């Protein structure tokens, strides 16, 4: 008697599916539901609000500021992270002593939680004791009246530095793995042809890292949109929203200001934007340009 494979497969998928439905889809559905109400979060009393919360999101200048900060981190910090990670991965290909030391240095931040990283970098920027302001004073550049983390022009870059420090290790590993995939013969024939280092990287390594680059871009974008702990602990979104990101804004709105309806609307809008932009990125990067040319 032939057993239907479908039920067999479903049996194995059921636990994971259950967790997914219960821990991901269900809260999502609740968030959507709550976004159409006003809810203080301290009882089951709710007041229907129709689309009022969404209308408020569209009119809210802080929403746009938070989104802008997320975008800045995605693009500016992203470029820095990718550039440094790519260079580090390239340097680490040679398995000599300096490479091993660099390897350890670059991977240590990955082992550190974002909470610890936030405390560490808060100390780095401490106005009286931190190494960064000390260096600033030593270089004769004075000091900031409000400190790095509360001066409007420097707060977001400072948080960006902490985020970059935390993230680079992962991309070094990712790009390193990608570089490992490149067949040795390709690199050897490049050496035999006498192609110089930079051209070798740009013309051979770079195009062959296509799938890795695509993964990196999408993964980085999603992790920037998910940034919370680093910002909340270093600056709490301050000074005056200059470092506010979507997640800190919706957290403060819902949990600290008891506006769960509006917070849920922000969360749903955030989700839709992340899905839309990731979808767009995946569509834009759907075909390897090298293969397209071939």
């Amino acid at each position, binding site marked *: 008697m032939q057993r239907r494979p*479908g039920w067999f497969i479903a049996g194995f998928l059921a636990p994971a599916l259950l967790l997914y439905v219960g821990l991901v*889809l269900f809260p999502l559905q609740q968030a959507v539901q709550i976004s159409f109400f006003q809810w*203080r*979060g*301290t*009882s089951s009393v709710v007041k229907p609000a129709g689309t009022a919360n969404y209308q408020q999101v569209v009119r809210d200048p802080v929403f746009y500021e938070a989104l802008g900060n997320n975008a800045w981190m995605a693009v500016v910090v992203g470029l820095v992270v990718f550039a440094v990670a790519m260079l580090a991965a390239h340097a680490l290909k040679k398995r000599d002593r300096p490479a091993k030391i660099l390897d350890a240095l670059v991977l240590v931040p990955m082992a550190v939680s974002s909470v610890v990283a936030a405390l560490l970098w808060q100390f780095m920027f401490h*106005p009286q004791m931190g190494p960064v302001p000390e260096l600033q004073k030593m270089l004769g550049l004075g000091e900031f009246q409000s400190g790095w983390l509360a*001066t409007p022009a420097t707060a977001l870059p400072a948080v960006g530095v902490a985020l970059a420090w935390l993230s680079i290790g992962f991309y070094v590993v990712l790009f390193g793995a990608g570089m490992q995939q490149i067949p040795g013969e390709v690199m050897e024939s490049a050496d035999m042809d006498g192609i110089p280092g930079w051209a070798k990287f740009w013309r051979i390594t770079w195009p062959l890292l296509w799938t890795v680059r695509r993964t990196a871009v999408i993964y980085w974008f999603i992790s920037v949109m998910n940034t919370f702990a680093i910002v909340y602990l270093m*600056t709490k979104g301050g000074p005056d*929203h200059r470092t506010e990101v979507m997640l800190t804004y919706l957290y403060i709105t819902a949990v600290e200001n008891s506006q769960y309806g509006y917070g849920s609307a922000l969360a749903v809008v955030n989700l839709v934007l992340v899905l839309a932009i990731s979808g767009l990125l995946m569509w834009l990067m759907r075909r390897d340009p090298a293969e397209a040319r071939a």
Partner: protein
Amino acid sequence: MNRPFIWKLGIVSLAAVAAFGCAPVGTETSTGKPDPAGAGTAAPAADAKLAGNLEVQAFKGGFGIDFYEAALAEFGEKHPELKTKIEGDPRVWERLKPRMVAGDTPDLMFPGWGMDHWSLIADNQLMPLDAALDSPADGAEGTWRDQFLPDMLKIGQVDGKTYLLPLYVNLNGWWYDKAVFDKNGWKPPTNFAELKTLCAAVKAKGMAPITYQGKYPYYMIHGMLLPWAYSVGGADAMKAVQNLEPGAWKSDSMLQAAKMIVELRDLGYFQKGATAMSHTESQAEFVIGRAAMIPCGTWLYSEMKDNLTDKNQLTFFLPPPVEGGKGDPSALIVSIEPWMVPAKAKNPEAALAFYKYMTSPAKAAQFVSEKNTLTAIKGSESGIKLDVLRQPAALFAASKDAWAWQVRDWYKPLHTEIENALTSMLNGELTPEQFVERCEKAAEATRNDPNIAKRTL
């Protein structure tokens, strides 16, 4: 796997979600006014034997929960039929909020600063306690209400009904280190003009005159903006602000207070980088002697005591008022962290009897001596052991107006906006006029929002 199978999987997931999601979120609507009919439970007579279960949940902060645990144990001995339980942690509100939503509440709770007490009141989640307050006190003459300082009870009242009860009271003021001041021949300032003179002397010595907890602007609001606005405009000006009256923020009092802050900044009297510092960072700067003064509540000593040396002589004083201002110079801002009985408590009689016991004069005095803080119970200052508490106690007793800044509890989004505007003003992005304009706009938005429950003093 073939496509039809994946479709089936998708449909099953969505069906599961729909099934889960059909649980109603809640269908009652609220106008924000607490139930007018209920007057709450009267606490039983002192010698009545209580039975059943009593569950107490408490915030475990700087004062711990050991005092409450011991008190509950003593109380339990008097009522052998009563099964008692007490739990606490530093973020107890995170456990209590879902319980309040689900209706599975403890009998007595002290949820701490992370709980939105006034939303609980607006949602009819708390029991009015006036019947219990009017019952005889435990271990003293008169009613239970008589044991409390009346101004402290007012803070937890709406339309004459009491929902929140105080235990310990924090005063908001400034601190200086007497040892440092004596060494330099400085005296704590008694008005703003003296403050400026003192700051010049401190700055000349190479010390930062004033530091503050810039990352949390409510310290500067309680320590500078509000006391100075009160000093200029008097109690009526502050009442107008708290009642969201139109134009209250554009009054001379608020603008003057903002200008005073900016003046101190421009004279270089604020420690560099203070705006970025957390409470522990700036308080550490003060304690190690890099800054001469800091605005902080009376909890500062308890919070920093592990960092103090024998040389420190932390001393509390009131924010230096403006000379010739309308406001009474003895006025001070207090804050309470309240206890309350959920409306759905299963054993409110036991809850109130226990809290009555904890607020009896003997226990209150014991709290003062063990925890080094003031309480809202009359006569409890007899328990003061440490000198550091005598000055605040004297100022509290002599104060002609001990008031609370309730905007922070009543209108959280408004207060967040005030905090952000203050930070921008400190950074020079807003002038004092623009600062009060921005606060006025935020107050107007709050006033016009029908979804926010309005309170009046």
